[in-house]
Every structure is written in C-alpha cells, then in structure tokens.
C-alpha cells in the first residue's frame, strides 16, 4: 500500500489508483434485462428504469406483441418460479424494477479536496470521495444492509437533497433515526430513515434485512388504483385517512406500491422490508412506514410526525 515516492511509471500508478476507486454499486441489471426479455420482444422498447407506465391507472399498456420477433426468440420465455406472472404485465413491470437501485456514489479514500477532482474526472455530478475522517454520518452496522437505501447522509443533507424538509416522528425513539439515506429514483430523491431493531421496545428486526423500522419520504402522489389491484393474495389493504388525506395500511407482505411523480408518470416502488406497511400522503410528499409493527403503532408513529 505504501508506494514509495521513487518514480514509478504512470501506468503502474494508474493501476494502483484503480484499486482505490469505489464505483457506484452496480444495479440489478441482470434482473432488469431478464425480466424484460421474458416479457417479450415488444417490451424491449419500453424504456425507463422506473417502468414508467404513462396513462391513467388501470390502463395497462400491454404492448402489442409484434408478429414474431426477428430473432425467433420466444415472446415469453418461462419466468422461472414466478407462476401467475404471465399475462399480468403490470406485475412484470414490478419485477423488472423491483431491484433497480441507483447509488450515485463513487468513493475514493482520499482527501476531501479531491472530491471535485473526482467529479471532474469522471464527469459525474455526484461522485464522492471518502476521507478517513468522515463527517458525522450515522451508519448501520455491517450486516444490516438491505439493498438500495442509497447514500448515507445527515438529516440536513437529506433535506437539501430532496428539496423538502424531511419529517421526523416526535415519538421516541423514532425521533432519532439510526441512519439516513438518500437514493434515486425517483428523480427528486427518496429519503430513507432507518431504525435498528429495539427488542426492548417491541420493535423486532425484519427477517431479511435486520432493520427494525423504515420511514421513507419522497415527493409523489399515491396511486392506489394501481397498487390495490396488484397486491398479492397474502396482502390485505385497508384504506384510511390520516389528517384528512389518503392513507393505506397494508398487512402481510406487500411487494410494491405505485406512485405518480411530479411529471405525472406512474412508477412502482418496491417495499424494502416486506413487512406491514403504512403509506400516506402529506401534501406533495408521500410517507411510508415499514416494519413488523401493528397498525395502531404505525398510526401512532405517523401521527407524531408534525
């Protein structure tokens, strides 16, 4: 690691530098591509990582399958282990985009001043370089990692990034998230407030992720017309109102919900914890609580958010 200062050829040094570059996490391209191919050739033209389904909810834009593909590829190769998916295009879209995660961070373990140099070099707007001494960004213990929370940030940074003030419950201990993340999509960003399990407070960790509670906030409108129809058989949906606006309690293991972004496009957003979920609207912002908790508790937490 401690290369001497004696002249070393630039190629060697570039090779060493490369070892110190941390790239943005590679998204689940394989899943995206496989699902699109399995959905058939016509879907290959469907663009956009969020599976933008333009149009009104309920109008399922099943693309016409063109008469025979040029390559003779079967229109729908078997979707292994996903019976019932065929013929349900919107659900396919969920599968396609379920695991797509963009993490706009490239890190390089060097000084803070080099941050912009990195951005310049790669032409990235959001390249970041880490230093040994990081600002106080709380982080989760290794092993807690669910996919796709994005970049760890402070609350202030999160608010700046998404352009609206991130709301915190006033209920203890949810007034202090253990970690805060920002990710895209949606284009304007999504804030994830992560709470570790608190067995002492009857807050268990979700089975797969080890996260106790997740509060997600982003600018979008709920699109119940979509997600109501697409909830799996194991999910029950209850329509509620919270402070006069739409809210839904989803019990079971909901897979994804649908929202409409500020451009009017409907997009699915995967639930991260696959646990009970409360989702509601607060003005232009959608908030969502996921966790292995009761409806009453979820509502209490939600109502403690000013």
């Amino acid at each position, binding site marked *: 690691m401690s290369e001497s200062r004696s002249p070393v050829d630039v190629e060697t040094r570039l090779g060493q530098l490369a070892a110190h570059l941390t790239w943005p996490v*590679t998204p689940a391209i394989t899943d995206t591509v496989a699902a699109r191919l399995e959905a058939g050739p016509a879907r290959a033209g469907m663009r956009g990582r969020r599976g933008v389904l333009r149009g009104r909810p309920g109008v399922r834009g099943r693309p016409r399958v063109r008469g025979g593909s040029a390559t003779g590829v079967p229109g729908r190769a078997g979707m292994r282990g996903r019976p019932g998916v065929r013929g349900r295009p919107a659900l396919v879209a969920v599968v396609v985009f379920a695991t797509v995660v963009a993490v706009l961070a490239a890190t390089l373990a*060097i000084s803070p001043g080099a941050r912009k140099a990195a951005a*310049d070099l790669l032409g990235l707007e959001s390249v*970041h370089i880490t230093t040994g001494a990081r600002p106080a960004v709380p982080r989760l213990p290794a092993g807690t990692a669910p996919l796709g929370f994005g970049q760890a940030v402070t609350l202030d940074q999160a608010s700046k990034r998404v352009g609206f003030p991130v709301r915190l419950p006033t209920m203890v201990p949810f007034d202090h998230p253990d970690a805060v993340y920002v990710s895209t999509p949606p284009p304007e960003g999504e804030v994830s407030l992560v709470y570790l399990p608190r067995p002492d407070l009857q807050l268990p960790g979700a089975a797969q992720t080890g996260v106790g509670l997740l509060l997600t906030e982003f600018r979008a409108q709920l699109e119940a017309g979509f997600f109501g129809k697409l909830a799996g058989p194991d999910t029950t949906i209850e329509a509620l109102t919270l402070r006069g606006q739409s809210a839904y309690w989803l019990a079971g293991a909901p897979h994804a919900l649908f929202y409409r972004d500020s451009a009017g496009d409907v997009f699915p957003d995967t639930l991260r914890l696959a646990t009970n979920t409360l989702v509601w609207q607060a003005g232009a912002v959608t908030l969502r609580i996921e966790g292995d908790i009761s409806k009453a508790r979820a509502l209490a937490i939600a109502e403690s958010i000013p």
Partner: protein
Amino acid sequence: MEGRPLDDRLQAQQALVREAKGGSVDAYRELVRAHEEVAFRVAILITGNAADADDAASEAMVKAFYALDRFRADDPFRPWLLRIVANEARNRRRSSGRRARLAERLAGGAGSGRPGGGARLPSSGASGASGAMGAAGAAGALGASGEAAPSAEDTVIAAMEHRALFDAVGALGERDREVVALRFFAELSEAETAAVLGCALGTAKSRLHRALARLRQALPAEAFDV
C-alpha cells in the same frame, strides 16, 4: 482471476452465447450477470451518472440479445457487448447533453483548451453540504466490513499520491481522460477499449499512448506535494 482457467471460462461463455443465440433467456441471463458490472462502469464513464448508466446498460443488454443472431459465436463476446453498451450510453449522453456540458464546463475541460495541471474548481474547498454528501454509498456505508484497514500513515501517503494522479487525469482533455479511464479505471483490455471507443485497435493504442505521455508531463516529480 481465481477460479477456472481462462480457457474453460471462455468455453463456458461460448456455450452460453450459443444457447442465447438459440433464444435461451436463461443462458443470456448468465451472460448478463457476468458482464453487468463492467457494462455499468463503462456506461457510467460515458454518461456521467449512475441513473443514465443503469438505463443505458440495461437497454443495451436487451438490444444485444435481439442482435445476437448477428454475432458470431466464436468472436469475443465482451468487446462486442461493451460496444453496444457504449453506443447506448452515448445516445443517452447526447440526450442529456445539457448536464454533460455543464459538467464539462465545471471540469474546465473541452473548449477551454487544456487546463493547467492543478486545475481546480473555484468552489473546490467549500463544496458545501450537498457536495459533501456523506460519501458513503450503500457499499461504503453498509458493506464495508471485509477489508483490512491499512495503517493511517500508509493511507495518508497513498491518498496524497492517488489524489495527485487523479487530479492529473482529471485535468486531461476529454478524449485523453476517456481513454485512460476506460483502460485503467474500468480496467478494459486494449481491444475492449477500442471497441468502446469505436475505433481500430491501433488507434486506441496510440490514443492511449498519447494520453499517457501527456499525463506524465502533467505529473512533475513534486506532484505529490499536495
């Protein structure tokens, strides 16, 4: 490079390519899995952001599947695929050209000639809260448990050296920067670099050669004195 010998892996890959040519999505899925990372990195070097890179790589992989009948199974698959990825990424870069041009302007790159070795952004030190965005991506924040930490001193020295080099690469012109980043940061072979650049192997080699020469010039002995 561990694992099976290269020949075996190439043969396994060729078998997958043949199956995929026959329409097997499952076989193609394995090919995509083996290439998604390099495809994404190439795309990000071209598009300049992860979202577009994701789109471009995915779109390219889908297109490549339908173009497989034009691919000869005995040819190397990776350069062929990466070329499609690069084309798709360029299309996207064009469509989000405004952003790219902005980044370029910030970099003091194209158009303003070659900036001096120490090109810095005016705002460099005070990049502000949003620029200092924690920097811990999911990988850093959540998955960084495995690596043994080097000593603090080593880290500092290496960091200074890396920074000087990184700055110098960043100060190259766009064409030089691109070829160096593809070859050394995305760690492509020369043939793959040529495929991505859409030029002949010899052309890619000489572009790289010239870029490295300029890089050496830009790196005086005291370059590490940062």
